[in-house]
């Protein structure tokens, strides 16, 4: 299974060297296309006017916040079940990127909400669960770095990622009992998107750009972690040599 093939750190490093430039190129081109279409080509909204353009940075950020957490949880499960050595590092590297996306989703959402709803913040289903997601990311990062032994930190954080993953739909579902001010789904729906294609195109392009950005930065960070591991091994060897 291809997944297990990349448990080998050296193979992963080689793969990352090949893939990273592609991810970078795709990010930049899709970003350019998405921004052009979103800012210049797409029409303003009938009710919201030009403020609807914030959608092109808000929705991709929100989607990626969820995606990154799913990646983190899945990799954590893989790390615990198969002791896949690279999986923990992928999870660890996903966390700060996911936290950034969550932060951006919250802030751009506020900036969009103020002109649209008249308020910077409201405690409804979507906003509250995203805020909790942000804290789950912070908790994961804090736990991962709270141990002198990096391996133990990774193991503990893996358990937390899985427990937190169970919690996210619960929070989202539980807060649905409150009135929701946030708009319901208009893209990922059973009947297909309800959004106009002139707006859908830049939205999907920006989402694609954000996705390739995620993998780009992820590759960079996982490489750093693998190299840092090698550094630690060499440092320990040298320390042993110095002692003899």
């Amino acid at each position, binding site marked *: 299974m291809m997944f297990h093939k990349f448990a080998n750190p050296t193979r992963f490093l080689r793969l990352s060297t090949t893939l990273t430039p592609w991810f970078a190129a795709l990010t930049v081109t899709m970003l350019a296309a998405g921004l052009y279409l979103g*800012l*210049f080509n797409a029409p*303003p909204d009938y009710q919201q*006017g*030009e*403020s609807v*353009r*914030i959608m092109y*940075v*808000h929705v991709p*950020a929100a989607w990626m916040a969820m995606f990154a957490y799913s990646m983190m949880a899945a990799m954590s499960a893989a790390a615990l079940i198969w002791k896949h050595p690279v999986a923990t590092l992928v999870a660890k590297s996903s966390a*700060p*990127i996911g936290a*950034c996306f969550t*932060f*951006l989703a919250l*802030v*751009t959402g506020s*900036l*969009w909400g*103020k*002109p649209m709803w008249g308020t910077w913040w409201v405690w409804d289903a979507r906003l509250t669960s995203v805020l909790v997601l942000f804290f789950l990311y912070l908790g994961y990062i804090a736990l991962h770095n709270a141990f002198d032994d990096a391996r133990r930190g990774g193991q503990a954080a893996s358990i937390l990622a899985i427990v937190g993953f169970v919690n996210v739909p619960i929070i989202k579902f539980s807060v649905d009992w409150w009135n929701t001010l946030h708009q319901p789904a208009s893209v990922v729906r059973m009947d297909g998107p309800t959004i106009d294609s002139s707006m859908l195109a830049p939205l999907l392009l920006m989402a694609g750009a954000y996705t390739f*950005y995620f993998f*780009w*930065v992820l590759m*960079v*960070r996982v*490489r*750093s972690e693998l*190299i*840092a591991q*090698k*550094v630690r091994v*060499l*440092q320990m*060897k*040298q320390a042993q040599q110095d002692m003899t």
Partner: protein
Amino acid sequence: MAWDKFFDMGGYAAYVWPAFSLSAIVLIVMLVVSLRYLKAQTQTLEKLESSSSD
């Protein structure tokens, strides 16, 4: 193309431009920090590998 009108964003400039620029800043900073970290680790590794092969 009326640039003034573009920058004004139908009166919503105070919301739209901070949203886009903050997104750009956060994503660029994350990228730069990650690249710097990679460079630092790679350099440390090279130093260690060359000194241990003495």
